[in-house]
């Protein structure tokens, strides 16, 4: 197999499906690339109409009762993201054919990638909060499947779970935020929310909504302190890293913030949250990117840094910052996608991902080296690349911001880090002396280097054509972010400004650091390898499990008597509450005098029998006592005008007692299990529960009752139903349906006993069929 990481996996299966999936998968890959490019072209055709006439809208009713429409809107911002998603997606499909070629599950991989692409596209085009959320969650699910694609590796599974949980938790917060926002703004349509009452902090729930939405955006876009899942997600195959974790999915949170900034932005809270998180994130990313040596890790952390930059820019707000964010986002997609694909090619061809163990590869892979060099220059922010423009604008925005020194310093630091990180991926493996590799790098097929080279070249072209970009792409996008129509004009050269100086300083310092990069230097700074956020994640999961086990051990103890005690105690607590307010007089206990002597004697006898049944040490005594209660019931039925009941009860009781005797005789002798204190506790609880029943019954029997039902039966039993025994008429005619159910019960009970007896007792649990 091509990928060395997949060695031991499902070898038996691979041999079966290898040839089958091989060709089919390739063809599918090309087909999907075509689909992506077609979508790209369709979106591109919207550029002109959008720039000239404003957003295009499309809406289908889906679930209007729940406020969900399949509403899509294409404006400048969604065009930028949509074209990134489809354009890079197409290149990634081609790249995947080479990278995953011959993989037994290439088809599945492409299917998951397609699902992701469509979800992401939906996210970028959705004009309904819930619809956006739906696509948001679908990207989480598809990215879960993609990160864990090499599922035989424990680290891949763990990373997938981590990404799912972090973004999933954020997603739930986001849903709550969306619902609050929709309720507060009176609509779920995003474009209608811009001018709503909710905008600009004018609503009581503004702050919680903002925090919830930021939680969603920050987790998805790997902001501090949630960024830890992103480097771990590098366990995914490289096409996934290049696509999801640099160019598209991690920018979903940024997209969301940009999309909602007309509706939510511009407040001090917004600025504080976004600029704060962004700055911390870019510093963390800048630092971590420098101290890592694994190519993908370096790129992952520098992506974190870039995401911090975007968040910060959106937080600063205003036209200049928005322009910086948009330009930087586009540029980042070009160079970061390229570098990831380059890293994948290097790893694929040499089997090595450590920057320091690589070198001299440019001879073996010149086209790849060219792509890498272009991407590096772009990442470093040199003119005429788009990044240069982005950085200039960004520096201008930070210098004008309320905290110029901190933010500008942060941008300079992260720019230095970008140069170092870019050089580690784009320069180090290709130049210098050659090294020994586990695999000898062969000729890299065109399908492999085509993607990165096109992307890198496109980045250069975009920078050169900045006038065109400004007019057709950047201006509409910035208009969408700031919520009003603006026109952007940028130039590669606009005099000797402080921004230019800072930019040049960052580049120089960056290359300086890179060239003095040595083991000593790195070991000097690597001593601090901060993982507190991830530590919190693991500790949190462990604690959750511990608490779960604890709770479960307490509640689900396995002791039936505790289950019953808890149920009875609950019953007491809840039922006693309404009864507590009843005055003693309302029970009318004086009514007891109306009893006849024999009835009272019978009641006392039954009471004694019940106590006896409850306490008798011998089984037969208890059964006899139970029988006394049962026959006593029959007598009461007799005393109080219910002969049918008396006869039935008498017969049933006889059968029950015989049954009990037959069964119980085979049980071993009774043992005393429980201690006196627990008996006392149980008795107290049981008597209290009985007391509640008595109290309720006393109240109910005194309640002036009248039932029209009894009178109807009395009047109609003979006339309409031709029977003089009203009880029997009720049973077989008026309410025969009850009897119908009842005989079903008796039948099923009998069948159950019959089957149970016929199945011999098995000491062991046996479930085989």
């Amino acid at each position: 197999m091509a990928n060395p990481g997949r060695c031991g996996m499902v070898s038996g299966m691979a041999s079966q499906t290898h040839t089958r999936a091989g060709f089919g998968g390739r063809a599918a890959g090309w087909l999907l690339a075509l689909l992506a490019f077609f979508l790209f072209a369709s979106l591109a055709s919207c550029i002109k109409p959008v720039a000239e006439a404003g957003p295009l809208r499309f809406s289908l009713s889906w679930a209007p009762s729940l406020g969900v429409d399949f509403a899509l809107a294409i404006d400048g911002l969604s065009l930028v993201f949509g074209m990134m998603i489809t354009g890079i997606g197409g290149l990634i499909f081609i790249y995947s054919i080479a990278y995953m070629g011959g993989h037994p599950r290439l088809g599945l991989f492409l299917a998951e990638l397609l699902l992701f692409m469509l979800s992401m596209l939906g996210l970028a085009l959705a004009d309904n909060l819930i619809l956006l959320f739906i696509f948001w969650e679908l990207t989480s699910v598809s990215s879960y499947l993609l990160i864990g694609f090499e599922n035989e590796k424990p680290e891949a599974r763990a990373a997938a779970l981590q990404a799912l949980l972090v973004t999933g938790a954020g997603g739930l917060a986001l849903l709550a935020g969306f619902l609050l926002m929709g309720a507060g703004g009176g609509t779920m349509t995003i474009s209608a929310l811009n001018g709503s009452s909710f905008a600009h902090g004018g609503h009581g729930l503004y702050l919680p909504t903002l925090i919830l939405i930021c939680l969603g955006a920050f987790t998805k876009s790997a902001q501090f302190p949630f960024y830890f899942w992103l480097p771990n997600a590098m366990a995914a195959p490289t096409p996934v890293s290049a696509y999801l974790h640099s160019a598209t999915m991690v920018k979903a949170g940024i997209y969301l913030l940009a999309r909602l900034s007309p509706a939510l932005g511009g407040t001090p809270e917004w600025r504080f949250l976004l600029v704060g998180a962004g700055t911390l994130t870019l510093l963390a990313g800048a630092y971590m990117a420098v101290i890592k040596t694994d190519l993908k890790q370096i790129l992952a952390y520098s992506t974190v840094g870039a995401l911090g930059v975007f968040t910060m820019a959106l937080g600063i707000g205003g036209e200049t910052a928005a322009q910086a964010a948009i330009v930087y986002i586009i540029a980042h997609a070009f160079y970061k996608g390229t570098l990831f694909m380059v890293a994948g090619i290097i790893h694929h061809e040499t089997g090595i991902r450590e920057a320091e163990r690589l070198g001299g590869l440019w001879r073996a892979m010149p086209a790849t080296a060219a792509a890498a060099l272009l991407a590096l220059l772009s990442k470093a922010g040199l003119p005429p690349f788009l990044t240069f423009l982005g950085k200039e604008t960004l520096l201008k925005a930070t210098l004008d911001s309320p905290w110029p020194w901190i933010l500008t310093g942060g941008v300079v630091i992260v720019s230095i880090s970008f140069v170092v990180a870019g050089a580690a991926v784009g320069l180090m493996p290709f130049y210098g002396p050659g090294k020994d590799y586990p695999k000898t790098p062969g000729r890299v097929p065109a399908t492999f280097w085509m993607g990165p080279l096109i992307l890198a070249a496109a980045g250069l072209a975009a920078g050169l054509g900045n006038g065109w970009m400004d007019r057709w792409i950047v201006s509409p996008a910035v208009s969408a972010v700031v919520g009003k129509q603006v026109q952007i004009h940028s130039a590669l050269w606009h005099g000797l400004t402080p921004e230019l100086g800072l930019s040049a300083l960052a580049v120089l310092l960056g290359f300086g650091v890179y060239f003095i990069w040595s083991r000593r230097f790195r070991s000097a700074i690597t001593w601090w390898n901060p993982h507190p956020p991830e530590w919190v994640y693991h500790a949190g999961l462990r604690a959750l499990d511990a608490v779960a086990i604890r709770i479960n051990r307490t509640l689900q103890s396995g002791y039936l008597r505790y289950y019953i005690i808890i149920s009875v105690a609950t019953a007491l607590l809840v039922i006693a509450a309404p009864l507590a307010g009843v005055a003693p007089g309302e029970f009318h206990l004086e009514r007891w005098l109306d009893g006849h002597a024999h009835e009272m004697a019978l009641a006392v006898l039954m009471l004694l029998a019940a106590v006896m049944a409850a306490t008798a040490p011998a089984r037969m005594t208890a059964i006899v006592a139970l029988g006394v209660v049962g026959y006593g019931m029959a007598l009461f039925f007799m005393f109080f005008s219910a002969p049918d009941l008396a006869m039935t009860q008498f017969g049933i009781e006889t059968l029950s007692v015989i049954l009990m005797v037959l069964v119980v005789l085979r049980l071993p002798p009774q043992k005393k299990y429980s201690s006196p204190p627990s008996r006392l506790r149980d008795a107290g609880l049981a008597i209290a529960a009985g007391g509640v029943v008595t109290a309720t019954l006393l109240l109910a029997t005194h309640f002036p009752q009248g039932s029209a039902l009894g009178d109807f039966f009395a009047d109609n039993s003979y006339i309409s139903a031709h029977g003089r025994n009203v009880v029997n008429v009720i049973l077989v005619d008026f309410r025969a349906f009850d009897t119908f159910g009842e005989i079903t019960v008796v039948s099923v009970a009998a069948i159950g006993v019959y089957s149970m007896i016929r199945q011999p007792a098995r000491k062991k649990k046996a479930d085989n069929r």
Partner: protein
Amino acid sequence: MEVILSFLTGSLYAAGLYLMMRRSLFKLILGLMLMGHAANLLLFTIGGLKRGAPPFIQEGMSRLTGDFADPLPQALILTAIVIGFGLNAFAVMLIRRVHETTGTDDLDEMRHADGPIR
């Protein structure tokens, strides 16, 4: 008489519940049966107690007259008694089968179906 039967009903519930809180399988079933009796007695008491007025339409009459016992609760109790018999018979057989299978009468030893981690 309602007062006395109310107290008797409460007592039967108490005895039944107390038995169900024991550890013995046999007492569990005993408790269930007592609870069944208690529920029936409750239904009977709530229906109103009338002496010597069974709900039969005498020959020559076409309807019940005077102060007759409400026939509906009686019909309900009859249904409940028979249903209860079915359930109890099954439960009795069940405890016997459980005893044969587990070899014990002690409910505390029957915790294979739950417990902290399974």
